[in-house]
């Protein structure tokens, strides 16, 4: 089920109603059933993969705790669990990619190899496997007690608001909250609805409408002049942000309706002054996952410079490949990693300043670099990437111009304005202090724009494919 669909608009209020009408100790049942229904709306049979992962990690958690005084056995359960989860990810996400590359390599060497692997990626696989792994790691480290109730553990992995595109929750936050008794609160209801409404606006009005133009240019970059290609590149920066931020905001709002507070995934990332800050503000749940479970165990920053740079590169390449089994994602991750290292070196000699102009220029520089890197991410392959870059620098006087609907500039302006206003704040909290007339005025505008100006083309959430 996707958030911006009629079935979800029916499902969510029913779910909330049933949740509050059910006594606390039985609430996990409708919530789990609803989450299963939500997931099975896509491809029902893929719930079996989820079930297998859940059973393995649930059992591993209990066994690791039981054998906590026998480090070797504990480690064996830990390794089994992580390996099996990664194996699922490998088979469904990377096997086809590796096969294609091996075939290409063999054919380049003159060998006649023609195997092909066609496996459809279960929706949200990378998200829930990472969430599952974080539980196993936390139990292994002794930071989290193993969950004995299978229903609660299954719900931790499958909680519908964040099941398919995160945020990737930690057991310390979500699993704990699942056990807490949630009381109905008008405040949660209002804030949740505000977030959902804002999320719909960002996704359906801003991101999807931008997507129409981005798709046009990326489908045939050489047909457009360089200005239009640059415009499409900038539009894509806002499209992917709006798409993912919009989805995460709806997820946050949906969870809040039932009293659950899930993690913020974004904090105005395009206002970052360098790449390191960008990654503290973009897809926060994934960045912190890699920080806690890969970067710090590798030594983090408390090592020599060369080793630190290596750690950074490993983390960013892994982050790139996490997004998709394609060289373009790997390159995207690598580019961010390299830039991160370069910035760190340059910052050593930088004079600290808080002058608004310098800070503004740094923000613009970071935005432009991130925008350039998004080309790696958005391009379908290296050929497409090359075409986009080539068209961006060599066709200033030739090719078509993108004819952008004037309304879109208005929506984009509103999105940028909202980012400025919401610097380090969330929309629901920002609204809280406003007079009723202003609040209701905002609601009316958002509802009207979401209905009357949302894109009618079907743009699935970009992160669904991961």
């Amino acid at each position, binding site marked *: 089920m996707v958030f*911006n669909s*009629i079935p979800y608009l029916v499902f969510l209020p029913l779910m909330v109603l049933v949740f509050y009408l059910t006594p606390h100790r039985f609430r996990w049942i409708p919530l789990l059933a609803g989450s299963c229904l939500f997931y099975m709306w896509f491809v029902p049979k893929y719930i079996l993969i989820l079930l297998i992962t859940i059973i393995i990690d649930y059992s591993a958690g209990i066994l690791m705790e039981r054998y906590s005084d026998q480090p070797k056995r504990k480690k064996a359960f830990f390794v089994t669990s992580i390996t099996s989860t990664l194996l699922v990810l490998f088979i469904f996400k990377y096997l086809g990619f590796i096969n294609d590359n091996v075939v290409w390599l063999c054919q380049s060497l003159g060998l006649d190899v023609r195997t092909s692997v066609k496996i459809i990626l279960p929706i949200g696989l990378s998200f829930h496997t990472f969430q599952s792994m974080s539980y196993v790691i936390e139990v292994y480290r002794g930071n989290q007690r193993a969950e004995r109730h299978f229903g609660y553990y299954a719900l931790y992995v499958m909680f519908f608001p964040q099941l398919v595109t995160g945020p990737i929750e930690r057991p310390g936050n979500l699993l704990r909250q699942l056990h807490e008794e949630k009381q109905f609160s008008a405040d949660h209801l209002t804030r949740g609805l505000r977030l959902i409404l804002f999320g719909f606006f960002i996704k*359906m009005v801003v991101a999807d409408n931008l997507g129409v133009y981005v798709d046009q240019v990326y489908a045939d970059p050489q047909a457009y002049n360089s200005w239009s290609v640059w415009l499409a590149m900038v539009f894509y920066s806002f499209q992917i942000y709006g798409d993912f931020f919009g989805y995460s905001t709806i997820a946050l709002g949906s969870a809040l309706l039932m009293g659950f507070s899930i993690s913020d995934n974004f904090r105005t990332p395009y206002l970052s002054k360098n790449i390191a800050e960008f990654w503290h503000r973009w897809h926060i749940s994934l960045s912190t996952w890699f920080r806690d479970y890969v970067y710090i165990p590798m030594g983090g920053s408390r090592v020599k410079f060369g080793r630190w740079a290596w750690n950074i590169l490993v983390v960013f390449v892994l982050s790139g490949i996490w997004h998709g089994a394609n060289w373009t994602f790997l390159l995207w991750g690598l580019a961010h990693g390299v830039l991160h290292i370069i910035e760190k070196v340059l910052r050593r000699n930088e004079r600290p300043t808080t002058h608004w102009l310098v800070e503004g220029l740094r923000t613009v520089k970071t935005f432009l670099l991130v925008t350039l890197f998004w080309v790696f991410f958005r391009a379908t392959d290296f050929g497409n990437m090359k075409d986009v870059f080539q068209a961006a620098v060599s066709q200033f006087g030739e090719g078509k111009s993108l004819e952008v609907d004037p309304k879109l500039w208005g929506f984009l302006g509103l999105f940028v304005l909202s980012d400025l206003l919401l610097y380090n704040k969330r929309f629901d909290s920002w609204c809280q202090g406003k007079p009723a007339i202003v609040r*209701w005025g905002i609601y009316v505008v958002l*509802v*009207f724009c979401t*209905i*009357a100006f*949302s894109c009618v083309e*079907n743009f699935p959430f970009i992160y669904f494919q991961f």
Partner: protein
Amino acid sequence: MKRGIIILLGITVALSGMNWVYAKWFYHKDLMTHSDMVSMSWKVAEDSLQLVYLGESSNKTYAYWDQDQRKISEMVADGLPGLRCGDITKEASHAEIYYYLLKNIPEDNCVETVVVTMNLRSFGPYWIYSSLETALQKQLVLMKGYPPLMGRALLAFKDYPIHTTNEWNQLADKEFKHAKLEFPYPFPFETAQAWNYDFAVKGVKDAEGNRDQAMTELTSHFVKNYAFQIHDDNPRVKDFDRIVKLCEKRGWKLVFNLMAENVDKAETLVGPDLVFLMRENAKYLEARYGAKGVVVVNNLERVRDEHFLDKGWPTEHYDEIGRKIIANQVIDGVSKKILY
């Protein structure tokens, strides 16, 4: 309680206001952008048409060698000189589309007679679950008669079936696999899929006894397009029923123009069993709608193989002679059963 009532009242007022604003300044443009076929319905009233012919590609497809390249509807119009006739032609249309096209004809119109194309293949799974349906159903959302803002909300939240071509094919295959075929005599296959499989395995042989792959594939297309039985629960039947009710309500006389199919080819490629099913389906439709007072012009076997334009796929695209045969039948039906 009082606060709740005020909020509800406020929401109602706000929604009504938004609906008014949207209807006044944005609805018409959205209709033209996302449901442009509605303009064909409006034109019926603008042109003060008395007879409207609703059709799909069969109405306008002609051969480049045809001397007379008129559409079937134009031939009908020329054959009924006393009536102001026109057509609404939309490729890949079917009864549901026709229903909404008719529904959107403005109240202030001169329509007396409606001729609706009835395509036998459109009752089968491969048309019901055609990959063109996503685009067609999307066009219908704003035409369904909801208040403008609600219609736009349904469009925004994608209240239409969104499937990939692969998913649509899977739906059709599922139906093809499970729908039971019933013959009044012993027949070796329970389902059309089993029947099709048998043809695929055995293959059609050429004069020298070798497997003719092109003919085998064409045979498979015929089985897939005609090997089904129409029952009361067929979605197209329900749509035609809605058309009957709508026309009754609006006082329009109704003609269902059952298009000719290439029965000759079906007989040669597949055999009499497939022709039996085609005839049974035509009989069912004629009986069902004849009983409801609709003039059903049954053209099923009126056009011979040589007048079908597409040789590699079953269609209702005819050459000049084929189109004339259909047009004359419609003219005959309208003249004898409606005008007099």
